[in-house]
Structure formats: C-alpha cells, structure tokens
C-alpha cells in the first residue's frame, strides 16, 4: 500500500475533494465533522468510515475534520455489519500481512470478535487498530455507502508489513488484587471486597484526602487497572463509570485475574511513547499510524501531547504521521494471543 492520507478541515473541502471511482476510501472523522452520506453517494465512490473522538494529523490533534485514506486496488477492505454474528470462514484475512482493524469501541462483542478474527489470520500477520465511538448515547459510529452501523467493524487488508509498538508507562499504586467477581466489562469484587470501595480507598490514600463521589469521574482516568501478564507487562483496563459497588471498565475482565491499581506521571507516559516511537523508527518506518487511547490523552492533556507530536514530526525520515484518538486499541504482531487494549498508545510504522 502506498500511503496516501489527506486531511480536510471542512465539509466543503470534503465535497470538493478529488475523489476517483478507481479507488476505495477510508474516511475517519470526529463527532463534530458534518457527514452527509447522500452527498458522498452522489460522488459514485466506494467508501468506508468511522467516527472517533479526535483525529491526529502531522503535529496536531483535531476535534473536527476528515482524515481521508486513499486505498488503491491492491487493498482489500471488508465491512462487517454485525460483529456478534459474523463468521470469517470464507474470509481472505489469511492472504494479507497486515489488518488495520477499526471496531465499534463501545460494543460488547469486540473482544469475542477480535479473537474470532485472530483465529483466521496467518501466522505472521499483524493486526493494528482501535475502537471508534463517542460517548453520545445511541449513536452509530461506523458507516459505508449503505448508512450508519453499530456493533460493526472495518478491516483494511494490506500486503505491507507494519511494525508495531505499544506504550504504557504506568506504575503500580496498589495491589496485587485478585478479581473474585466479574462479568464482561463489570468488575464487582476484588479480594472478595467491593471493587469500587477498594479502588476508591486506594485513590484517597494516594491523594491524602477523602474524595466525593461526584468528583470521582474526573479522577478515574488517572488510575487505570493493570491486568498482570506473564511478560511483566500489563493489559490496561479503564474504569469508565461506577454503580453501587461495581466498576464499569472499557474492556472485559475475567474472574481470577490478578490486577494492580496503576498511576502515572505525565513524564513517564510521554517517555514511554517516545521509546515506542523510537523502537518503530529503528525498523525504518517512514509513515506512522497512531491509535492513542482517549483517556490516556485526557491524562496527558492536549498540549503536552501536541508537543510530543511536534517532536515526532521533527524526525527527518518520517514522511507522515496520522491517526486517531480511540476507545480501546488493538495491537498484535502474531507473537501472542490477541487482546483488546485500553489506555495504550499503539504506533504502527509503515516503510516504503
């Protein structure tokens, strides 16, 4: 795939863009971007798209606009209308080296869908992607010529080899705790105690003061949960809301998992991203594709993140930097089983 990405700031620019019906288009936009599918359909082009919290292009983060990825003929693209019922039996997944995968980040089916998809990929294939979505209720975040969809996915299959890196940068605040009761994304008990109470107590201890429930939402993004893995790394889970004794997470958590409550300094996170970027660049990447977790960005603040992007763009070997702020991230280069990530920054490096 020759990477051709354009960024358009307004809907007028989108309507006047030089689309060609010889290509397919992946249109990534935000909840503020005006989308008129009838007008796009009148252009007689094949397009697929998703709505993300924010977009990344060059050294900026955009809350509005359109990222247009122009896909040539050798790129295969599959739009999965219903992740819950989709079967990959006759899919061409295994014929491609890299699968750029956009899922509905708020769907309950994304973990099972990714596992199902992973089973049909070839041994060396790389999966990179993230969850689309906004926190507006009942909104459908993926689209194509036929309309908007929820619980859906877009898989862009390319021959290029993409090197991926994942950054974390979180330190242990408290733990370990055993998940003694959970269901899907709902964490009920840690060490047989109320998950919410235990989590709240750990944060209060760190802050050295009592925290009012109303202030809790703004604090949760700073304290993710880290599922302990064998390779000394964590699978991060973001608490996104709470209810009585329960915590709602942005991804599934299994019973008997061992977790730590994590915390980070801004400098640690930035350092981790810089190190991931360097790791990808060392392999000769010229284009960087970024899936940055929405809550990680909130922690970092847009200013410090933009500063980091500017640093990134200073590197002479890099021709383009583009990406999205996502709800859940996907990164698998075939060396282990697939997992849906939270609070991570996934960087994919494309060399050509």
């Amino acid at each position, binding site marked *: 795939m020759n990477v051709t990405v354009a960024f358009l700031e307004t809907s007028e620019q989108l309507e006047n863009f030089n689309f060609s019906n010889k290509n397919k288009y992946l249109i990534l936009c935000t909840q503020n971007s005006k989308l008129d599918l009838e007008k796009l359909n009148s252009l007689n082009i094949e397009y697929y798209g998703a709505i993300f919290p924010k977009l990344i292009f060059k050294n900026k983060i955009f809350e509005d606009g359109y990222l247009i990825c122009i896909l040539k003929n050798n790129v295969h693209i599959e739009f999965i209308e219903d992740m819950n019922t989709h079967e990959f039996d006759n899919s061409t997944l295994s014929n491609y080296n890299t699968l750029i995968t956009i899922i509905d980040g708020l769907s309950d089916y994304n973990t099972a869908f990714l596992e199902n998809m*992973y089973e*049909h990929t070839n041994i060396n294939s790389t999966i990179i992607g993230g969850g689309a979505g906004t926190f507006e209720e009942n909104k459908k975040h993926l689209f194509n010529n036929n309309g908007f969809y929820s619980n859906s996915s877009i898989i862009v299959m390319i021959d290029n080899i993409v090197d991926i890196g994942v950054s974390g940068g979180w330190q242990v605040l408290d733990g*370990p705790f055993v998940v003694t009761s959970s269901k899907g994304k709902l964490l009920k008990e840690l060490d047989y105690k109320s998950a919410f109470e235990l989590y709240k107590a750990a944060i209060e201890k760190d802050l050295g003061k009592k925290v009012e429930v109303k202030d809790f939402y703004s604090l949760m993004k700073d304290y993710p949960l880290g599922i302990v893995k*064998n390779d000394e790394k964590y699978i991060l889970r973001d608490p996104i809301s709470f209810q009585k004794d329960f915590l709602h997470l942005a991804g599934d958590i299994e019973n008997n998992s061992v977790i730590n409550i994590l915390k980070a300094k801004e400098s640690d996170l930035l350092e981790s991203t810089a190190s991931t970027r360097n790791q990808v660049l060392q392999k000769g990447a010229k284009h960087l594709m970024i899936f940055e977790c929405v809550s990680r960005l909130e922690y970092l603040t847009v200013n410090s993140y933009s500063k980091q992007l500017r640093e990134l763009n200073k590197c002479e070997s890099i021709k383009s930097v583009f990406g999205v702020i996502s709800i859940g991230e996907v990164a698998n280069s075939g060396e282990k*089983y697939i997992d849906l990530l939270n609070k991570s920054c996934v960087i994919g490096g494309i060399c050509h």
Partner: protein
Amino acid sequence: MSLTKLSVSYKCVNSIGNSLNLEEMMEEFLRTFIKETGAISGSFFVNRSLDLCEEVASLGKKNLFNMESIKKRLEDETLILEEVDTSIKLLAYKVKKGCLIFLYSCENDFDFITSILESLKNKIEINIDSCLNVENLKEQIEEATKENLEKERQLFEQLKMSQMGELIGNIAHQWRQPLNIISTATSGMQIKKELDILTDEDFKEYTKSILENSSYLSGTIDEFRDYIKDSNKEKEIIVQDRLKMATEMLRSSFSLESINIIEEFVEEEKLHFKLVLGDLLQVLITIFNNAKEALVEKDDLEYKWIKYSLRKTDYTIKITIEDNAGGVNEKIKDKIFNPYFTTKHQARGTGIGLYSAYGIIVNKLDGKLYVKNTEFGAKFYIELPLNVNYII
C-alpha cells in the same frame, strides 16, 4: 516465584474444571492458559479410544502443525518442545487421555510454562476423566430412555389391542339381538310366503324391522371404526357423545357381570372439546374397565354399580366415574398412575392403562386426572380445561 508467575498459575488452576462438558471445560482452560502464558494458539485432543484422537477445543491460529506425527511421537514422549519456524516453537504435552498442543514465539520462558503444565497435569486429568464419565453416563441414560420409550410404545400397542379385543367381544354381544331380530324377520317372511299368507302389511313390518336393526349394526361399526381408524386425528368432539359411546360399548359386557352403569348427571348443554378422537374414549374405557375388574372381585357384593357424571364448571369440564367396590388402598393410591404399577394378576394387568390415561389427560390435554375414595369405593375425576387452544 514472582507476582506475575504466581498470578498466571493462580488463574490457570482456577480455570480448570468449571464445567462437566469436556469442550466447554477445556476451552475455558485453553483460553486462560493461552492468554496468561502468551501463546499464539492452543488445542486439546482427546483419545476416546485407542485409535481415535479427536480435537475437542482449539483457540488461536489454526492448522499450523501435523497432528499425526505429533501423535506418534507422544506415544514415547511426554513433552515435545521444538521450533517449527524460525520464530515459533511448538509445545506438545501428553496427558492421560489426550494431549495439549501450543504454539509460542521463541522468546518465552518455556521452563516456567512447562512447570505450570506439570503442576496442573493431575487436576486436568481428573477433570477430563470426570467429563468423559459424564459423557458416558449421558449416553447410557439416553440409550436406556430410548429403550424404555420403545417398550412403552409396545405396551401402548398391546393395551390398544387388548381394548380392541374387549370391544369386539362387546360388539359381538350387542349384535346378537339385532341379528336375531333380522333372522326372525327374514325367516318369518320366508315361511309366510311359502304358505302364501304374506300380506303387504307383514312385508312392510318385517322390512322395517330389518332396516332398523341393520342401521343399528351399521352404527356400531362406525363407532368401532372411529375408535381404531381416526385415533390420530384431532377433531372437535361433543364430550357427551364420547361418554355415551363408551358406556354403550361397555354396557352389554358389564351386564354379563351384573354391573349396572348408572348415569348420575350429564350436562344438557353440548360441551365441545378439541382432541384426538380415540384419546378420551381410551381414558374412559380404561377407567370403566378398572372399575369393572374391581367389582368382579367382590363376590359378596349384591348390587354392583358404576356411576358417571359430566358437569361444566367455570373453567373445566369435569367427568367423574365412581364404583362401589370399596376404594383404592390408601397405601398404593399415589402409585396407581405410575408406569408398570398393577394390582392385577400378571396375565391380566400390564400397569400401563392408568399411566397412559394420565399421560393423555395431564400431558396431552393439560387437564387433571386423580382419584378419591368415597364411602362406596373409588371415584376418578377427569378435568378438562375450557378456553384453551390445544396443540396436540
């Protein structure tokens, strides 16, 4: 042991044995083991018999190894750990009734992974055994249930045949009188003709008698045919007609035993009900016959009777059949609707009649069938629900 290793072991050990279904149980274990130890894929193969090695659960990337060669090598080895590609290692681990196969990237801590497998081996084997035992038990139960159903079907057939035999006896008895009348009428006509004294009046009289009686005979044939032929077709019936048919069919044979069938009360309003035609008749005949057999044994009883009634209540059609044979022994009252339960001599009773009647009324028609003892004897209650659409 480090926290991460402890955490992996803890999670893996807790993922074993959470289901008695082999596929579910092994899938949960594989999913946890793969995720926790960072495998690319994992499969479990079970040996249900010596020659059969069957994949039960598999997660992750597929078809990356040749199972046949691994199976052969596992006959002599417990563990295979080897590179299958420059970056991938295969780990095959033999357990008592199968094997686990995983693929990993080469940079894993294989000492740790194999040590966990070693520590989990016993628990995995016990739980595989438990699942296989449950599978076997299920198969045995299914087989036994199938055999029982077949036996029950045969017994139902026997019951039907025996009831038909009785009915034919009844019909023969019922036919005797009209046949006598027909025979007398025809021979009367013949003699009068020979003597040349057959008048037009006589002729009309004799032919009328012959027609009436042959029509009656034809009616009894229709009733019998309904019982046999249409026994699988669902029809809307009038309950009074069914009750009348049952009593008519049985009356003559009951009279031979000096048993009186008495109508206690029958609702005048026609009560419609949708069912398989022969079903209600079969239930009624079974209960009437049971009462008859109880009464036959009461040699010292001077006046033997069976009373029946048919009433409509707010929600049900209620039929009662009562005899004066002394009632059902309280000790066995709860068992009389059980299959193969009989108080009769083995040659006469199969123990399937009331069981079959119960099946029809309760399971097929969603009604009630029960018995109470009165001051005279046993009283059977059949309750059919009104205002219900049946799917039979």
